[in-house]
């Protein structure tokens, strides 16, 4: 006996999906459409991509984005690994307090702490620019990375590290030869996530970039203010591809090895829920 298919629910779900993805598909389609006015389909072209990526400003901003992503990822991972190792041996209360701090960095509205950092950096005479954006990204990236690393550490049996110590390794050697190699898949997943989060962040980058640094996401925002051109679609599609590829890689690593990052991938970006 088969259950009747819930037709209404299927149709509704389908409609929601179409509405969600239609704008994205529109961007992709117009990025390869010959019509410069974005009105109708006039044939396939890669002209807009060539035009966009030959623009020196786009190139410079892409490099800025990469630089910010790389730096904030490295710093976030260092913080996350230290935090994970610390929290494993911390007392229950300290641990709860620390977890609260971690989650608050994800839950708090980005605009609020971006504004806070803006004011703080001003008071401390820290120059706006790449460094300031990196620090801003570390605020949320280190939180995501900490959660992933903690999850992996929790699944590691402490007897492995005890065995290494028993066999003659001091604390540093235990970390280097056992703990870190076993953490590596989680570290990779965390890195890929933080890279993509950093890449498509607009708010912190906008607030803290000043006149010196402009990541490509901010550039895109500026271009839209004037006019939505085919180049904007091309840049947007390229950004989307970069994020998708890193996320997919993280997903594949998660499937292949246990990292405790599964829930993170389903979590989506904080911006999406705001």
């Amino acid at each position, binding site marked *: 006996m088969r259950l009747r298919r819930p037709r209404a629910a299927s149709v509704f779900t389908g409609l929601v999906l179409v509405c969600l993805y239609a704008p994205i598909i529109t961007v992709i389609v117009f990025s390869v459409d010959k019509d410069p006015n974005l009105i109708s389909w006039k044939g396939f072209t890669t002209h807009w991509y060539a035009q966009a990526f030959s623009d020196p400003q786009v190139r410079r901003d892409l490099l800025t984005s990469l630089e910010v992503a790389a730096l904030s990822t490295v710093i976030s991972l260092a913080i996350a690994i230290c935090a994970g190792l610390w929290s494993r041996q911390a007392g229950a209360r300290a641990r709860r307090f620390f977890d609260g701090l971690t989650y608050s960095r994800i839950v708090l509205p980005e605009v609020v702490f971006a504004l806070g950092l803006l004011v703080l950096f001003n008071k401390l005479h820290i120059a706006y620019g790449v460094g300031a954006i990196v620090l801003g990204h570390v605020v949320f990236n280190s939180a995501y990375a900490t959660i992933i690393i903690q999850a992996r550490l929790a699944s590691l*049996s402490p007897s*492995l590290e005890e*065995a290494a110590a*028993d*066999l*003659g*390794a001091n604390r540093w050697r235990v970390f280097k030869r056992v703990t870190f190699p076993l953490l590596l898949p989680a570290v990779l997943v965390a890195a890929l996530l933080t890279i993509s989060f950093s890449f498509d962040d607009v708010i912190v980058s906008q607030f803290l970039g000043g006149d010196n640094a402009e990541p490509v996401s901010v550039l895109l925002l500026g271009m839209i203010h004037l006019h939505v051109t085919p180049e904007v679609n091309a840049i947007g599609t390229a950004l989307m591809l970069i994020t998708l590829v890193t996320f997919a890689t993280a997903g594949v690593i998660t499937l292949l090895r246990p990292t405790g990052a599964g829930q993170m991938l389903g979590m989506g970006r904080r911006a999406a829920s705001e």
Partner: protein
Amino acid sequence: MSDLSTVRKQRARGHGGTGAPGPAVRLVSLRRAYGDVIAVDGIDVEIADGEFFSLIGPSGCGKTTTLRMIAGLVEPSDGRIEVHGRDVTALRPHRRPVNTVFQQYALFPHLNVFENVAFGLRERRVLAAEITSRVGEMLELVGLTGRERYRPSQLSGGQQQRVALARSLVLRPEVLLLDEPLGALDLKLRKELQLQLKRIQHEVGITFIYVTHDQEEAFFMSDRVTIMRDGRLEQLGTPRDVYQRPATEFVAEFVGASNRLEASVVSADDGSGYEVACEGVGTFRAVGVPGLTLGQSVCAIVRPEAISPEPTGPGRAGLTATVTDLAYLGHQISCVVQTPAGAQMTMSMHQHHTGIAVGSSYEFSWPLESVWVLPRDDAGARAAV
């Protein structure tokens, strides 16, 4: 095996351990408390060089904590640990001349068999050529030659256990600590590996300290065993000693003495034993734990294999009991009877006693020299169940 004699010689040279006088391990008033809970409550033991020594007891008795303190993985609250006369209490695990085989093996999943076994040698900066030969030698000893490139996850439980053993033995420790190393294996494999462990210990001559909750396993392999209870040593001796002359009811229960008759001392030890009175049996003379006092309530232990279905005579004691269960175990019959006092007794008899039927009453008796008398201990009996 010339390889092994080399191992032994090199080990002796390396540590000056073998051949040195005095115990391999000495625990002095060793104590460990977790808050209000006392896991190990001041134990004193000396373990001889080359001895196979077992710590046994029910879970929570402090045996694993004791082992982990010797390894340096748990810090003692009080007391001292000496290895070959050297105080190691304050040393971190990686500086101690002991190695551990962990309960779940704790093999490094990211390293292959060779690298797992070579782990400690690399920490000691042993030359590559020597690492290759020593790892090879060890894998041969445990029968895993040819598996060098396998990951631990590709091995069976028994093979993983042997890699863990090789990983520790390759370092030629002065003492090897084993924490329920066979606990995760099935019965057949356990028996097989018990034999192998015994053989390997004999061949390498290293002191083994073995923790298990399985008294049969401990008795089979050990030179001496100690039974722990609530963080204290209840009894220490050879397996034969402990089995035949348990010091307390707890030990008797733990080593599987199923027949305990309630009795009381009616005349003190005169050199040939106590005279005890036992309900349903009468008064008889038997040896027992020294120091029992007149009128003290005691247990008379009777081994199942000492009982036979024949009337009491000179030099024997016995009672009439009803058979409640019979089981044929090949060449032997296991028989459960109910005494008039309501107690249950088990006996194992030879196949030729075939006239016995369930539901009937018979006279059963046992030689007096097979009886062992020990003090009653209600708390102990309960804890062991």
